[in-house]
């Protein structure tokens, strides 16, 4: 395609593409997000292509092959980004009817082509079935998981082919950038200030103000950085946006660069996200070729170049000063602020760093206007927020809801409740720096300010649901072991303090904790928060502190009674043989590595609790289920 030299050329190209795309009678979208690819969706894509070709149906409309599209009867198979409904994958969506097939296997493809594509019949076996009610849904938008959502930042994810710039443009792509370059940089910043957008990376700092600082800073060379170092275990919103709609991220970066007067940008992506990196590379190349970014953005004087930097596996690099150090090729250790990056960032130049989702929202605001953006959400937290809903919930996946949606709506309406109708226990929000939300918090509004009042934070937006079978002390230990490993070692309190906290927690789950340990945890936690430089140390004790507050009894049971209520901590388990059921077969006695089981053949056996090492080997071999955990 020829380079675009003006905003009006972009508009006419969009019309042209739309016309071509409308010639497709039917579109088959195969989800190619990480989740579905793991389930074999790429093979399914190839199989669709092969079968349609075999039946002479694949007349995939391509812009440069005009003559292919003379008939209005063509079928298009495309790969899409993440639909968000990962647990149901691989997913196939058929447009225009909006049919969603779940758990599709390669053997199902032929039937889909013969029945649905050619005859329009819906295959009952492949449509979504609500696991708790059994109700079936054939259309994607009717499924309760999607019904309560408002997908704005994710609008294109699962809808367009992320490797096709044409499809992005056809869906109003780059019109935000085109609007922006038609305004003065200050007008662009005013739009974002007006929208009330707050950074989606965790802290919730107003994005417009950050851009204003960057603009006001003096300097010939400025940078914009996209923070795609989504290290929070249990979060994958940014991955899905980068994989499913890479151009939106680039567009948001270009708009930010124009606003502050930068002409170079870096996207910092975790190396654990190879697909996101590949799609971003393709997107940058295509946008450059079309003249959307590069030396002359849409024919204007503004130039913008963007590079990708792969992370190398360090959670702390999500912190902006550490991220900058990493881009510079150094150890990713945070630096004290001020100076803030907007004054002295990458190579000492003014730098504005924004999270992936924030950038997607910037594109949206410049495209649809600040009023559209803030017509949902809360007054102080406008717009929508994406969350990664995972753990013991029926529908796991990626969701986007207006700010202020309650936890109950998310867990029960969208998430479909707890797996196996177990009891809800808690939600860990914001990963290892966030906090725990209990049953009492189910009706709390999820927005920046409400969460702060209960000691939690949105963080990047991971929601891990835990049921009654989850031991809260073990979970706290798990988070502490994560932050302890990821502490960069710069601040003594974070480096040594997290280690001591972890040791105490390990002691507690091993049944060797004392009541005094609990006070010590609080004291250590508060001290680490006070004495650490960056967000990692300042928030690392949060999971322990919030669980100590809301699940104090559970901690007490561990240290006083040596009992794990959820029966997770193996050191606290007590095994006993039911003499009524035991047949005296001696199998358990033979397998016990500690010689703790005694008893004669054909007589009930007993376990010596003092010798028992709680390995559970006896439970595994008992053919009569006579051995019980207490």
């Amino acid at each position, binding site marked *: 395609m020829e380079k675009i030299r003006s905003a009006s050329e972009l508009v006419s190209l969009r019309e042209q593409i739309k016309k071509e795309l409308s010639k497709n009678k039917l579109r088959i979208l195969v989800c190619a997000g990480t*989740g579905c690819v793991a389930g074999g969706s790429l093979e399914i894509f190839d199989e669709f292509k092969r079968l349609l070709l075999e039946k002479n149906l694949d007349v995939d409309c391509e812009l440069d092959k005009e003559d292919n599209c003379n008939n209005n009867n063509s079928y298009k198979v495309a790969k899409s980004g993440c639909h968000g409904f*990962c647990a149901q994958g691989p997913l196939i969506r058929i447009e225009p009817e909006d049919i969603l097939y779940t758990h599709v296997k390669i053997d199902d493809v032929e039937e889909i082509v013969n029945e649905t594509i050619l005859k329009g019949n819906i295959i009952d076996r492949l449509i979504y079935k609500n696991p708790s009610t059994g109700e079936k849904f054939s259309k994607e938008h009717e499924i309760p998981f999607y019904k309560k959502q408002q997908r704005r930042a994710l609008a294109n994810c699962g809808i367009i082919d992320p490797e096709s710039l044409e499809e992005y443009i056809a869906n109003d792509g780059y019109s935000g950038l085109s609007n922006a370059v038609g305004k003065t940089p200050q007008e662009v910043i005013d739009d974002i200030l007006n929208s009330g957008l707050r950074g989606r990376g965790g802290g919730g700092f107003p994005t417009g103000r950050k851009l204003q600082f960057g603009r006001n800073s003096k300097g010939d060379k400025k940078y914009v950085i996209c923070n795609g170092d989504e290290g929070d275990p*249990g979060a*994958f919103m940014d991955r899905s946006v980068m994989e499913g709609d890479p151009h939106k991220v680039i567009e948001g970066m270009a708009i930010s660069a124009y606003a502050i007067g930068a002409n170079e940008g870096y996207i910092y992506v975790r190396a*654990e996200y190879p697909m996101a990196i590949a799609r971003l590379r393709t997107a940058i190349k295509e946008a450059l070729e079309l003249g959307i970014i590069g030396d002359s953005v849409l024919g204007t004087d503004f130039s913008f170049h963007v590079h990708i930097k792969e992370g190398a596996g360090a959670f702390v690099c999500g912190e902006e000063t550490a991220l900058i150090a990493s881009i510079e090729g150094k150890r990713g250790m945070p630096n004290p602020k001020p100076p803030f990056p907007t004054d002295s960032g990458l190579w000492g130049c003014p730098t504005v760093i924004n999270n992936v989702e924030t950038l997607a929202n910037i594109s949206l605001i410049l495209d649809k206007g600040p009023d559209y953006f803030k017509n949902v959400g809360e007054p102080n937290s406008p717009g929508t927020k994406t969350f990664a809903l*995972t753990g013991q919930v029926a529908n796991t996946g990626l969701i986007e809801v207006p700010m202020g949606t309650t936890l109950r709506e998310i867990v029960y309406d969208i998430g479909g409740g707890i797996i196996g109708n177990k009891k809800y226990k808690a939600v860990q929000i914001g*990963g290892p720096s966030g906090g725990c939300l209990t049953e009492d918090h189910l009706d709390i509004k999820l927005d920046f300010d409400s969460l702060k009042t209960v000691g939690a934070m949105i963080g990047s937006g991971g929601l891990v649901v835990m049921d009654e079978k989850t031991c809260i002390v073990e979970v706290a230990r*798990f988070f502490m072991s994560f932050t302890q490993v*990821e502490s960069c070692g710069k601040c003594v309190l974070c480096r040594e303090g997290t280690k001591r906290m972890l040791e105490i927690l390990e002691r507690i789950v091993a049944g060797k904790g004392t009541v005094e340990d609990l006070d010590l945890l609080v004291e250590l936690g508060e001290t680490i928060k006070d004495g650490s430089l960056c967000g990692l140390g300042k928030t690392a004790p949060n999971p322990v502190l919030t669980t100590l507050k809301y699940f104090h009894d559970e901690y007490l049971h561990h240290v006083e009674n040596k009992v794990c209520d959820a029966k997770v901590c193996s050191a606290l388990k007590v095994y006993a043989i039911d003499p009524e059921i035991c047949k005296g077969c001696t199998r358990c006695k033979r397998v016990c590595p500690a010689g703790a089981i005694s008893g004669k053949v054909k007589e009930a056996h007993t376990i010596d609790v003092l010798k028992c090492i709680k390995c559970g080997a006896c439970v595994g071999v008992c053919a009569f289920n006579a051995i019980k955990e207490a």
Partner: protein
Amino acid sequence: MAKSVVPKAQRSFEKVNEIVRKYEAKESMLIPILQEVQEEYRYLPEEILTYVATALDISPATVYGVATFYAQFSLDPKGKYVISVCDGTACHVRGSSPVLDAIRKKVNLVDGKITTDDLRFTVQTVSCLGACGLAPVVVINDKVYGQVTKEAIELILDELIQKEAEGDN
């Protein structure tokens, strides 16, 4: 301690040179350089770290500092199959620990070792692969396996071990 009398294996530095040249020997490109070197050798051999330091005109300590800071880099050789068990929150609460134990048992790893002596398998945990909807997740080289159970991973590994055994004959 007496040094080995066998001269250090004459590694071909050609490939390293090529990588360094590609990044114009820029100090800021140290991380991508090390990433490519690791891809080539499956780990970061010590003499290559020193070589890279000289080529970039920085101290070996700086290179060593970066190489040991990031979890992705390994100073020990890794196995032919790198098995990464995700231990992110979602995978953890859905039972990644028993899966990890089963894998370690299957490939005979004991005493905190992560690579088998025959350099076939490396078993490691990673913090989060971002495929939480499929928890628990295991990645073997580049292939992602979702909703893994102890039984399922044993079958997958049996197949791999079998394939390896056939390759030997």
